[in-house]
């Protein structure tokens, strides 16, 4: 019997879990995937938006601005890489210039601090690789970049350290009430809870329906990306957006917190909620879009491409409401959902309280995660100490990113630790570099085998079914 049961371990579910875990409560997160951050949160732009995009008065506008304000502090607290690099929306003709002015006004109304429209010379001195026929740009110094899955993992881990239970491979199929209690049916049995939160991303419409809440329709919208080698990592420093169209924010060019450059996304509607494959047409589209604005986007330096799916709905705004007494929807959380997640969490908690959930602050809430630094990020003193305690820090496994065996063991042993090759990759970047795991994958598997005490044949690349080895040689 749980006080609160959260459905979905994406950034939203994890942020809510962590926010609630500050209190004396019995909390569970049920997740259909095998790890945190298996949905939209895994593949998006990782931009902490300033908050000028969303229309005045929407939940998106309000929560975006608040979320952006909270991000840096939260990342510090949880030791997640974040960079306040600022963003530019660039205009190349009069029409686009008008749009920039519209965005500026909207941003002011939404309460975005320090917005500014800047002219060609200033733009080019900031970002010399922007095409020089640029006219003006909206400069938002409060925008930032974050590693989205690392953020979700950090929130999840920290919630776990503070007592939240995570139940993976657990898909909710039905919800009903037995007297005052929610009965949540899953493939792993029925869970009882006093309160339920719907943070099920692309399936949040189905869960809302189960809770007899608002009926809306999902418009799954794929977005494709290309990630580039660090060799061209200094092409741009800020996130460069074209002026938006009715289709969305357009193809951006941005650095990542780890020093790569990436481009994308496009916006393709599809029926399938789970098909995150890329298409040649899409890759060409984003390439064209990026090259229109920035010089030096060279396909020879692509190290991988991938796609994510937005939980876009016909409502056009986040759906954060009360579908039934005791439940809260955090549904249809499309962009800027990553940015807004910390603010969504605050709002969801207050909606739960409105319905009678009593919060008693924990005496020993642990706000910081421990032991999160990678060897390569340590200073000399820290390196010395780490090596004394654990010689495994002296063995580099991922040579592209200089990730050591100590880092990998740590990623496996941490709360909600990695159980797959991709899980290791998401937590400590082994296999994220230009060789994409070609060299380190066998070694990562060896470490997983030893640490988890499972046969190597049962180690997956990603979720169940993505086995790597088919048996022993003869």
């Amino acid at each position, binding site marked *: 019997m749980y006080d609160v049961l959260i459905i979905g371990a994406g950034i939203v579910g994890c942020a809510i879990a962590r926010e609630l875990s500050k209190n004396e409560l019995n909390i569970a997160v049920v997740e259909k995937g095998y790890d945190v951050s298996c949905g939209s949160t895994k593949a998006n732009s990782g931009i902490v938006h300033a908050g000028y995009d969303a229309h005045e008065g929407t939940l998106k506008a309000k929560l975006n601005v608040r979320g952006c304000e909270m991000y840096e502090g939260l990342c510090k607290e949880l030791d997640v890489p974040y960079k306040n690099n600022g963003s530019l929306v660039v205009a190349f003709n009069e029409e686009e210039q008008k749009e920039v002015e519209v965005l500026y006004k909207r941003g002011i109304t939404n309460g975005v601090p320090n917005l500014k429209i800047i002219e060609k010379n200033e733009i080019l001195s900031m970002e010399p690789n922007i095409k020089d026929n640029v006219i003006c740009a909206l400069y938002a110094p409060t925008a930032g970049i974050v590693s989205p899955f690392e953020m979700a993992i950090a929130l999840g881990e920290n919630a776990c350290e503070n007592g939240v239970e995570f139940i993976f491979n657990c898909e909710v199929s039905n919800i009903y009430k037995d007297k005052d209690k929610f009965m949540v049916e899953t493939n792993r049995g029925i869970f009882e809870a006093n309160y339920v939160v719907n943070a099920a991303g692309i399936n949040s419409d189905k869960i809302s329906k189960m809770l007899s809440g608002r009926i809306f329709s999902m418009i799954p919208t794929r977005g494709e990306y290309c990630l580039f080698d660090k060799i061209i990592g200094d092409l741009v420093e800020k996130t460069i957006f074209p002026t938006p169209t009715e289709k969305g924010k357009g193809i951006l060019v941005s650095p990542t917190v780890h020093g790569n450059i990436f481009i994308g996304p496009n916006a393709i509607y599809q029926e399938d909620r789970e098909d995150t494959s890329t298409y040649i047409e899409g*890759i060409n589209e984003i390439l064209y879009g990026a090259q229109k604005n920035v010089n030096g986007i060279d396909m020879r330096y692509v190290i991988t491409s991938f796609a994510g799916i937005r939980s876009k709905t016909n409502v056009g705004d986040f759906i954060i409401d009360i579908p039934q007494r005791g439940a809260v929807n955090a549904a249809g959380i499309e962009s800027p959902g990553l940015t807004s997640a910390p603010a969504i969490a605050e709002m969801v908690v207050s909606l739960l309280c409105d319905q009678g959930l009593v919060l008693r602050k924990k005496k020993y809430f642990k706000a910081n995660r421990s032991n999160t630094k990678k060897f390569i990020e340590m200073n000399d003193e820290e390196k010395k100490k780490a090596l004394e305690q654990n010689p495994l820090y*002296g063995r580099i496994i991922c040579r592209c990113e200089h990730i050591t065996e100590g880092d990998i063991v740590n990623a496996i042993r941490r709360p909600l630790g990695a159980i797959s090759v991709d899980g290791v990759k998401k937590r400590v970047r082994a296999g994220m570099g230009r060789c994409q795991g070609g060299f380190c994958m066998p070694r990562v598997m060896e470490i997983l085998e030893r640490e988890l005490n499972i046969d190597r044949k049962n180690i997956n690349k990603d979720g169940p079914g993505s086995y790597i080895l088919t048996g022993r040689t003869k």
Partner: protein
Amino acid sequence: MIRDVVVIGGGPAGLAAAIEAKKNGAEDVLIIERDKRLGGILQQCIHNGFGLHIFKEQLTGPEYANRFIDEVKNYKIDYMLDTMVIKIDKDRNIIALTPNDGIINIKSKAIVLTMGCRERTRGALNIPGNRPSGIFTAGAAQRFINMEGYMVGKKVVVLGSGDIGLIMARRMTLEGAEVKMVLELMPYSTGLKRNIAQCLHDFDIPLYFNHTVVRIHGRKRLEGVTIAEVDSERKPIKETERFVECDTLLLSVGLIPENELTREANIPIDNITSGPIVDESMQTMVEGIFACGNVVHVHDLVDYVTFESRIAGRSAAKFVKGQLSFNDKSFKTKGTYGIRYVVPHRIDPLNVDDSVNFFMRVDNVYKNVYLTVKNNGQIITKVRKAIVTPGEMESVVVKRSILEKLNKGDIEFTLEEIKND
């Protein structure tokens, strides 16, 4: 302590260079290898075909490597295993990481870079589709199968007809997998002719030229690939697309010299080879830093690696003893018609012992040609070739006596058609 020569990498290149440095009077030679064993990529190449030129016999990779490892031990050359160099600089300071001692700093009078190369991956090809498991570089699959004893799949498609791909097609067949086909984007193979015969023809594995993979299918494990023929600009032809069911895709799509350390030390790199620019002594453009083997350019025969590495080791010893002369009598080499690159890039005839062996790759398949070496329009030497292909490295030897007589100007390498034949 200041070392005489530190060799970074313990593959065939590093081993040969270290031995040769020692033989030529460098006292204190150290090899640093990040793996648990010496031998480099040869450790996983358990097929034979190594050493035909150097030893006049057919050895397996580990056998070939062992001959050098034994010699390293006989000469009491120091080596550190499980130790990765993470930084070098122009002044020949080395920073390495090792489990026992943590971060160590080493100063060396000369450095030989022999870090080898790595394989190009799916990301570099940007093949669209899903991202399931079951996609391996051929070398990674080789490691699993030959060193760790695990099979990686049952129904296999190989993309790329490079040597590693060909050898793995045979290896997987012998292990009971069904290798459905090998696809090659180009109209010719980039592998050795003998490997095509011994690995594909002997096992009835079809090789399709002008073909590529255009899409990956399967959300968890690979379920198949869509393949297509490509046109003369190497663009896939839509009408020729077809689905091939498989659970494994092996990529053998090229090797890239591993020059992160070199780049960080600001040692100039040749854009075509992706390796450092070197001279007749295998010295890079930074004094006292030498390079050889696959880190300089990708070799198809390890014998050539050994040959080149001996020069590097010998030169490093000479440098330490102050015997490597420096003057401006340097010639640049240049590949023109048909020749993609030439190594070494610069020649100082005064440092040449007897002759220079120039290594080069052509940019296409040519039949009946002269491989011609020129200086100031004058022909220095020419070699007749019945066929040259990008898959097989060519070499031309030029004597010191000839090089000494050259005037200013580049040494040009070019292909010339043989007429009236």
